[in-house]
């Protein structure tokens, strides 16, 4: 059997995972200088624009080690942001080992711990790597101490490198072949392949990413998806490089893809096991642990004609984003759409952007919400994440909302302002300690709803980008919820309603009105925007009528240009939803949740 090592690179956001992947790929000569660009595995437009990894990416590297043997290394670069932790979890399940990267100047941060725990749960061998040792502020000794004492990892295994300059990267390759275990599994056994990801190719159908645990698979075989017994004939198998590279066969221990002309999008599901029709395996591999969506919002096509397309788009996107959930929803203002669950606000924004970019469907997302518990007079409990289902207030006995435990790492000097922010957000039980001189690890229990409401933005701005943040769901605690409605010219826009704590309702009502005033362009008539709870108006603003919008002159020479300007204006309008007579831009729906600097 081949000498194989499968490993993920995991770390807190920005600690240099993708940059290290670049160096590994270059050392193994898998990319020409002409093709190379920084963070080459971040190939989605959104990833490059935002400078972060969103999707895990596998790359198969041939490596000749110092022991003279040829190895096949499957590297999986993973995202660092907490909203994409499901990508990390699934990547880890396809590997035997992980490189845990730690920025030599930042030390351990929130996601360092969170991802380490994930790797340990999957029973992986871990090599700690201290990165960015080229930075003047690097303090590798202090970080090494943290690794041993706070993480309890073996100090002997620690590697030091600069992914930027390439220093120390050779040693990492050697450490990978030396310390990480070879995959187990038997090519002679019946096929068991774990689907850990997929995406849709309009020519070839679903591209199934899988880890072959036992057995082997090649073109011509008939495969069976174990969860639904769907059968397909394999057209091609291959490995991941800069592009897909077909190979003759994939066998136990390897990571690769299967193309089998799977056009029914819903047949493929991450976590399912693939086997062969002839000689099937007896049991499926353990499925992935389901992930809990924490933020919910509804997606509507701006044009109702796009509903069918949106349905297909969501199904295809879900293939490639296993952490997204969706189910049918409807709104009196927006028509038919989907209630979707996300892992956080960034995840939600990424989904929105991908739907628009990859599927070209202009959409609107309603104000995001968490899941609340409503205990009713009749003794029942209702879980509600959608303001549309807010129960009759007279029938509510008590309500509860989810609390999280937030862990914030930051330089000491920001402690005061971060503490204030948490207090403003109804924080409880704060605690802190110093993992490294000058750095604080601060924990605080916060209502999740307060966190999705512009908490990230605020934290980032008050710590000038140095604060890092992670959270875990803790429990449900008593709350006092009301439904804040927004009326546009007297008409309630259900898509703008939100559930808020009574104590904050006035402030949130004002904020929503102000933000809408900024986002809704002036129109030919005056627009009144009101915030209301029950029948009581608690806030209001008005947008004055547009009084002039006319092109001064237009003659033969510039007819085309003037027409194009009007066409541009028209295209802008297409991205707005007309509610009553008022055109509300897409951005406005999320804006009510965002901070003022937006």
């Amino acid at each position, binding site marked *: 059997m081949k000498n194989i090592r499968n490993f993920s690179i995991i770390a807190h956001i920005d600690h240099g995972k993708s940059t290290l992947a670049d160096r590994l790929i270059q050392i193994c000569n898998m990319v020409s200088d002409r093709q190379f660009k920084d963070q080459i595995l971040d190939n989605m437009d959104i990833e490059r624009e935002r400078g972060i990894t969103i999707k895990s990416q596998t790359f198969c590297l041939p490596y000749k080690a110092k022991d003279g043997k040829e190895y096949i290394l499957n590297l999986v670069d993973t995202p660092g942001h907490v909203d994409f932790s499901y990508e990390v979890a699934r990547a880890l399940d396809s590997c035997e080992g992980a490189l845990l990267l730690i920025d030599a100047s930042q030390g351990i941060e929130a996601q360092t711990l969170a991802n380490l725990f994930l790797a340990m749960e999957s029973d992986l061998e871990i090599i700690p790597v201290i990165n960015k040792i080229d930075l003047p502020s690097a303090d590798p000794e202090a970080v090494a101490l943290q690794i041993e004492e706070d993480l309890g990892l073996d100090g002997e295994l620690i590697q030091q490198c600069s992914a930027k300059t390439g220093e120390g990267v050779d040693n990492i390759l050697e450490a990978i072949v030396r310390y990480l275990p070879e995959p187990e599994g038997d090519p002679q056994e019946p096929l068991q392949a774990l689907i850990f990801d997929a995406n849709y190719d309009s020519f070839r159908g679903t591209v199934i990413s899988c880890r072959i645990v036992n057995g082997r698979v090649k073109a011509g075989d008939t495969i069976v998806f174990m969860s639904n017994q769907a059968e397909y004939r394999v057209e091609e198998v291959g490995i991941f490089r800069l592009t897909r590279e077909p190979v003759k066969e994939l066998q136990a221990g390897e990571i690769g893809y299967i193309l089998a002309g799977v056009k029914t999008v819903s047949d493929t599901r991450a976590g399912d096991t693939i086997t062969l029709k002839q000689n099937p395996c007896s049991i499926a591999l353990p499925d992935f642990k389901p992930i809990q969506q924490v933020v919910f919002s509804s997606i509507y096509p701006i044009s109702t004609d796009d509903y069918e397309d949106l349905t297909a788009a969501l199904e295809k996107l879900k293939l490639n984003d296993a952490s997204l959930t969706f189910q049918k929803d409807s709104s009196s203002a927006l028509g038919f759409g989907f209630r979707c669950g996300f892992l956080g606000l960034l995840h939600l924004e990424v989904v929105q952007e991908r739907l628009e970019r990859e599927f070209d469907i202009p959409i609107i997302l309603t104000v995001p919400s968490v899941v609340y518990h409503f205990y009713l007079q009749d003794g029942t409990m209702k879980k509600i994440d959608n303001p549309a289902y807010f129960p009759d207030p007279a029938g509510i006995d008590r309500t509860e909302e989810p609390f999280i435990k937030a862990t914030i790492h930051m330089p000491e000097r920001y402690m005061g302002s971060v503490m204030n922010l948490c207090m403003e957000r109804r924080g409880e039980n704060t605690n802190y300690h110093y993992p490294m001189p000058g750095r604080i690890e601060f924990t605080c229990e916060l209502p999740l709803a307060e966190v999705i409401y512009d908490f990230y933005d605020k934290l980032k701005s008050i710590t000038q980008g140095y604060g890092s943040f992670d959270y875990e769901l803790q429990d449900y605690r008593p709350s006092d919820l009301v439904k804040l409605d927004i009326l546009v010219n007297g008409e309630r826009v259900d898509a703008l309603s939100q559930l808020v704590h009574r104590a904050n309702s006035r402030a949130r009502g004002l904020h929503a009105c102000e933000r809408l005033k900024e986002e809704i362009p002036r129109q030919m008539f005056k627009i009144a925007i009101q915030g209301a709870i029950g029948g009581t108006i608690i806030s209001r603003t008005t947008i004055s009528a547009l009084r*002039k*919008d*006319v*092109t*001064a002159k*237009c003659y033969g020479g510039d007819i*085309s240009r003037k027409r194009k300007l009007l066409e541009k204006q028209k295209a802008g309008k297409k991205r707005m939803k007309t509610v009553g007579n008022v055109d509300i831009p897409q951005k406005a729906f999320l804006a009510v949740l965002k901070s003022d600097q937006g």
Partner: protein
Amino acid sequence: MKPDLDPAERPGSIYIHIPFCQNKCAYCAFNSYPAHHFDINGYLAALEKEIDAMSAHLLIRQKKIFSLFIGGGTPTIYSGRQLGRLIRSCRKLYHFTDRPEISVETNPNQIDMKTLIGLKEAGVNRLSIGIQSFAAPLLKRLSRTHTVEDGLKAIKLARNAGFDNINLDLMYGLPGQNVEDWRQTLETALTTSPEHLAIYELMVEKNTAFANLAAANKLELPNEDTIVHMEKMTLQFLQSAGFIRYEIANYARPGYECEHNINYWTNGTYLGLGAGAVSCLNNMRITNVSDPDQYRLLITNDKPPFAGVECLCRDARFRETVIMGLRMTGGVDMTDIESRFNLTLSDYYGSILQNFIARNLLEISGDHLRLTERSLPVANQILSELV
């Protein structure tokens, strides 16, 4: 090519562009350049050559020409004799109608009696003068090179030379201008009894001196309330003086509407000659290169001076004709447009149109569809739905 788009019996017009001025005004985004940088006689020769060459063009050969317009820039940078020769060449080479409208643009300090007489003799019957303002400080701020007196004098000379169809270009919404300033400019303009007024709000266009000032926050324009006030006042003032606002920016005494420009707003046929000029022939829109030197070189080397061609499909051209037509207060002639494009407005736009009519943003009068008093100031809101 659908003949119904451009019935042969429908006459067309000719526009000639002179891209030179004495200097460049601070707000100007026209295709014009300070004359002293260029070989302006060479340019004139090139124009003569293009006039000659295009007269043989299939699409123009059998067309009747009802209007010739020499614009700029400042055409009167040339002498009356030079311009006269240009006009005569056109009249010789193209088939004009019996009494064509022949217009020339000029600026107050670029016109003298000799030029006026030359133009008159060549058949020019409409003069358009770039007055812009009758307030000395504003003229300065616009970096116009003429004075208030130059403006008044130019009009008087033109009258004395026998011009009985004079347009004045005036601008409002200027930096530091208030409603009263504007009223005075209008009043002064009326003392000269013009037949036609083209009245523009100042637009800060890209790549102008004003755009730079605006970017540096150094351009203080009147606020929206003031502008709206100025517009209301203009309309009342000119209507009571006997003018009809026949297009968003154009006012005329009855019978003095500019035929040449109406041809643009009805999306008719026209031939554009000179640097940056645009021709619209059949359903093709051809744009000449805008650089005068490049234009001259192409022509002297017997190359076509075209920079680009736009070909619109029938639907797009129909929509364009609708939005252009709605700029005129009389609106679009529905019968005419339907026969030209074989498309019916009400079928084509369906509920959008009905909705606008119901909201009093469009109205039907006879067989014309037009903007309403209410929607004229916000025309783009409507046009952008119909485009």
